[in-house]
């Protein structure tokens, strides 16, 4: 297989693969940029990376191809997803631009840069590809190892140091040191009384037997959901499910069925609307 790779032009198979996967890669990249939700961006990026991994393999960089899949798509993208989860999976940020003219400038620069870059590559007149045939003669990994541990050994060591530092740095950054003693429950209640805001403990979410998930807001007597009942994190992510209306609608349906069985004159079947919706 390396024999064909060494060839000056590539096999049609690779060409086919390139055109198909290349399109996928570009689409993935575009999605990465233009998806509203971070999760979607992350996923499409992962796709692009896998495609790239394939391309590495096709280019005779077997080790890198694997590393790409394992390290990037495996580790780094997962890390991304973790962070996205911390920040909020469904938190969508509007693509509306805030800085005047930023978007147009960006596009202009982007297009200009891209055109220039491609033009540059175009007139670089890269024709004869040596191919990685004899470079990979006795194994791609061995070849890399030979280089890394001889020629680039210092750079290699330094990257090691870099990684350590990065790890420690990340820990320092994210680790929160508790400076003062945690407030006891008593102190907290006293504080609440002092500040005079919502003295009793917070109400529990999901007041109905069938809905007691933490992401469902409990209903107030008038049937409106109360934000207080849902935990802060969920609130910030905007991940509150609101079931107040369908619960009431179910109740009404139940009443209707019982009336039908008792042959009462049917009440006009209108579904319950939330007051504010009615006012709309």
């Amino acid at each position, binding site marked *: 297989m390396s024999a064909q790779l060494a060839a000056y*032009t*590539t096999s049609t198979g*690779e060409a086919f693969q*390139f055109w198909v996967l*290349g399109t996928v*890669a*570009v689409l993935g*990249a*575009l999605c*990465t*940029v233009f*998806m509203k939700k971070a999760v979607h*961006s*992350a996923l499409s*990026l992962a796709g692009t990376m896998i495609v790239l991994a394939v*391309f*590495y393999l096709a*280019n*005779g*960089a077997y*080790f*890198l191809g694997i590393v*790409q899949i394992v*390290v*990037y798509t495996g580790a*780094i993208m997962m*890390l*991304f997803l973790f*962070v996205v989860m911390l*920040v909020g999976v469904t938190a969508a*940020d509007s*693509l509306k631009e*805030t800085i005047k003219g*930023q978007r147009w*400038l*960006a596009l202009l*620069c*982007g297009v200009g*840069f*891209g055109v220039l*870059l*491609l033009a540059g*590559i175009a007139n670089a007149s890269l024709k004869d*590809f*040596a*191919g*990685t*045939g004899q*470079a990979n003669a006795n194994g791609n990994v061995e070849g890399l190892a030979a*280089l*890394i541990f001889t020629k*680039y050994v210092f750079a*290699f060591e330094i*990257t090691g140091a*870099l*990684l350590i*530092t990065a790890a420690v*740095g*990340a820990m320092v*950054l994210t680790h929160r040191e508790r400076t003062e003693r945690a407030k006891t429950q008593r102190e907290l209640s006293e504080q609440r009384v002092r500040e005079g805001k919502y003295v009793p403990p917070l109400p529990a979410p999901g007041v109905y037997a069938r809905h007691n998930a933490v992401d469902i807001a409990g209903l107030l007597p008038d049937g409106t959901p109360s934000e207080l009942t849902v935990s802060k994190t969920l609130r910030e992510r905007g991940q509150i499910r609101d079931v107040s209306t369908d619960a009431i609608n179910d109740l009404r349906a139940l009443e209707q069925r019982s009336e039908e069985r008792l042959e009462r004159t049917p009440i006009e079947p209108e579904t319950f609307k939330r007051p504010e919706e009615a006012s709309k």
Partner: protein
Amino acid sequence: MNPVNYLYLAGLLFTIGATGVLIRRNAIVVFMCVELMLNACNLAFVTFSRLHGNLDGQVFAFFTMVVAAAEVVVGLAIIVSLFRTRHSASVDDASLMKL
């Protein structure tokens, strides 16, 4: 097909990534775009190593990955701590560079 197309692809991806960096406000997405740019570079490196017939390009790509990993780790840590303090992951909120 001429393998130089890989380079065109790399350039295209790089440009897209760069534009993304400029357009998106969500720090995480910005980071992803940076990753995209790095990957584009890696692709270029690999292609070059094929072009020259030696493995130095791949070594460089390898180093790039390592550095990218480190960068992502630190970057994400920063994002997290930022998010903790200001409950937002928007880069514009951190517009403290103004005097």
